[in-house]
């Protein structure tokens, strides 16, 4: 063959390989899914819809590289896996700030995570946290200290919940170098530290003793002429309180994450004449302030846990991301309705202003507000705020295997103290598939079959073929031997 022909052949082969093949691995946009014929794309995060970057582990190398997130012993749990036979998939996620400047170790619950397979929810899914993180926390408990809370017996419930042993242990838990502290505040017309003093004198409680004493000796009766300046209280807590020298020093020294727990039972109400629509401007101003606080929060952004101790005014209020408050969505059919009880039976005070709380939590970041006045619910709110965080989560889900017989997208949406979503695309080969795994009956894991198991198929088929090649001659010879016609 001439040299030119060889050159053409080589060029043709290279072009062919280039067209038919694609590079995979780090920096190539696609990663092989171990033990399968799938490849997975790099995650595509939608950062317009939140301030969280949901990162997904797409390769073993990435799991190793993120050593501060994934412990070495967990690397096998971190890599993505797909089993087309059972329709099961596993993917690991971890959270970062939107601009990827720092990790966000949050405690996620199933309600805060949405996972979809080609925009549809899977049959079943589960989330397993990994990498328990002991981070220092500062719990700022902001209690609505107005007459209505006492009247309904709410204050007794708050005090009982605060004195709950489990709550106390959670608040003052020490793990390794992580420390926790508590600030007890009350508000009506202004924000005050529980036990007296001013916001300049705030001291973070680090031991249960002073904490118990403060709770036992305060919140005994309501003050006179006390209105519920809820918005101001929240704004003050996230600005003045957090920026006060002693609190700031405590946060810095302990590298703590501040968590504000708000307990309120009604509306923001400054005077008798206040109607629902009066709160719109106040709320708008508060949201602006809170957004500013959130934007400069960095890795240790504060978050809000809100408990409305009563019946929400609009139980079916449908809050959407990036929604802005208006008279319509804040007040519904009652824009001019008075808040204070002096307005009579129609006064809004007996309800909890749930739209406001939704807007506020959305602005500063935090858990979805809860509306329940029972003591258990209050204690549960405290425990939720004080629970452990984790560095990464393992998501497993199952779909009908038929839904894996084409390319598909897996999307993970996290809507917790912060929000973010990411999507990855899985592309499988329609022609070859790795040996199916053995799905577990207890959970959504599967035992991956070793590749060499495919030799069982090859061996069986080849064995049958080779046997078939000899059956004919063997039968022929046997017959002739039996009939004594075999050549001697």
């Amino acid at each position, binding site marked *: 063959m001439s040299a030119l022909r060889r050159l053409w052949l080589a060029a043709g082969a290279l072009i062919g390989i280039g067209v038919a093949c694609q590079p*995979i691995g780090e920096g190539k946009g*696609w990663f092989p899914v171990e033990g399968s014929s799938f490849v997975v794309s790099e995650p595509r995060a939608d950062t317009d819809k939140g301030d969280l970057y949901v990162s997904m582990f797409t390769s073993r190398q990435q799991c190793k590289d993120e050593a501060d997130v994934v412990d070495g012993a967990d690397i096998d749990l971190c890599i993505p896996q797909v089993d087309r*036979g059972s329709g099961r998939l596993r993917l690991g996620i971890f959270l970062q700030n939107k601009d990827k400047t720092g990790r966000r170790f949050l405690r996620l619950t199933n309600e805060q995570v949405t996972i979809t397979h080609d925009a549809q929810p899977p049959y079943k899914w589960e989330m397993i946290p990994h990498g328990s993180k002991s981070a220092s926390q500062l719990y700022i408990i902001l209690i609505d200290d107005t007459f209505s809370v006492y009247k309904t017996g709410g204050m007794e419930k708050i005090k009982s919940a605060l004195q709950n042993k489990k709550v106390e242990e959670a608040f003052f838990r020490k793990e390794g170098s992580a420390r926790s502290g508590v600030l007890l505040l009350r508000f009506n017309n202004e924000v005050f530290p529980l036990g007296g003093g001013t916001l300049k004198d705030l001291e973070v409680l680090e031991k249960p003793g002073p904490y118990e004493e403060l709770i036992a000796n305060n919140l005994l009766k309501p003050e006179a002429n006390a209105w519920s300046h809820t918005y101001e209280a929240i704004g003050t807590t996230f600005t003045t309180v957090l920026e006060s020298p002693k609190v700031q020093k405590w946060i810095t020294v302990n590298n703590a994450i501040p968590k504000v727990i708000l307990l309120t039972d009604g509306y923001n109400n400054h005077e008798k004449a206040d109607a629902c629509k009066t709160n719109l401007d106040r709320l708008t101003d508060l949201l602006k302030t809170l957004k500013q606080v959130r934007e400069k929060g960095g890795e240790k952004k504060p978050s809000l846990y809100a408990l409305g101790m009563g019946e929400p005014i609009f139980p079916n209020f449908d809050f959407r991301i990036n929604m802005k408050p208006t008279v319509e969505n804040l007040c519904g059919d009652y824009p001019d309705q008075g808040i204070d009880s002096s307005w009579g039976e129609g006064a809004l005070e007996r309800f909890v202003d749930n739209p406001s709380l939704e807007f506020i939590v959305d602005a500063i970041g935090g858990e979805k507000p809860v509306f329940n006045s029972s003591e258990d619910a209050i204690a549960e709110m405290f425990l939720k705020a004080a629970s452990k965080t984790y560095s990464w989560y393992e998501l497993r889900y199952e779909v009908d295997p038929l839904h894996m017989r084409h390319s598909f997208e897996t999307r993970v949406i996290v809507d917790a103290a912060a929000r973010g979503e990411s999507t990855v695309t899985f592309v499988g080969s329609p*022609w070859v598939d790795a040996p199916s795994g053995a799905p577990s009956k207890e959970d959504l894991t599967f035992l991956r079959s070793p590749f060499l198991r495919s*030799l069982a198929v090859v061996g069986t088929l080849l064995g049958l073929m080779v046997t078939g090649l000899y059956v004919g001659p063997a*039968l022929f010879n046997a017959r002739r031997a039996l009939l004594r016609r075999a050549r001697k």
Partner: protein
Amino acid sequence: MNITLLPYTWTRHFAPALVAGSLGCLIWWLFLLYDVQIAPLVGLAIRAEGEGPLVLGTMAGAMAAVSLGLEGKLRREGLIAAVGLPIAGFLVAWLLTVITLIGVQAALPFVASKAMTVRAADPAFVSLRYRLLGWLAAGFWAGAASYAARAFWYRAWFAFFENIIGGVAAGAIGAATYHLMYTYGFPPLGIARDLYLATPLGLTMFGYTFGLLAWGVPDELYGGWVRVLSGPRAGYRIPILRPDGTSAERFIGHYPRGLDVNVPAEAGAAELHVSLLNDGSTRYAVRGLSQAPTTVSRMLESVDLRYDPARPAPLETDLHMEDRVTLGTGAQTTDIEFLLLPKEDA
């Protein structure tokens, strides 16, 4: 593979089928090995768009090559026919299949219904409806390549039907097997629907069917032999064809000189008893040249070949594998067997 390993039975036609089917299974395993084990190591995966053309193209090429290679080997052809033709067949079938499949894949989104446009354009979509044409094209080009080679080299112009229609049929059966396995599985054996098993079985059936239909082991690779089964000359055998392969007529009797097989008179043979002949093709016959008892026995049939003087010519009957010719009667008989053995035994 050697023709001596294939006795003249009806099962010999399955040999190319079994070899081709085995190759189909191996092709699947090699692609699986690359996809799952090698691609992650070398950092180069086969695109989903390219995998179909590559798998089916390789299959088509391999089937053409194995069919031509087997024929060349069994015919004991030289290097060109045994090696060159298969390579040429492989390249032609592979290239044409790949080109066809790329075209089919590109056209699919335009011919699919609106609701299925996205799926049709997805190269990772597992579907018989959108992949059937690929299987058929692979079968067609495998058959076309092997037919072209056979027509060119062996002057087998008549082999159009077996090769091309057989190739298309092989593609259809492969596709059907692939589809059935991933849709229904095989419940009698407790095998659930599984894409993992669908491809190896589909490719194996493709290969098996192609091997069975495209080229069976022909009679011309075998030569007729006469073998004495009983009497004083038991075990003695001679080929009917001459050493140069040309046809001949072999005479059997007790005449002492010039006969091909001498059987004593006391063994029931007349002077010139029977002759076994070949007409230059693959047809063998036996003629009764004597009025002495002469019977041809085969399954469910017995032919009396005694010479009738009133007839202008001796009686003749076709000979098939293991037909027995009995000379004489009663205690004085000799059994002679007709065998077809690979010409290599000559």
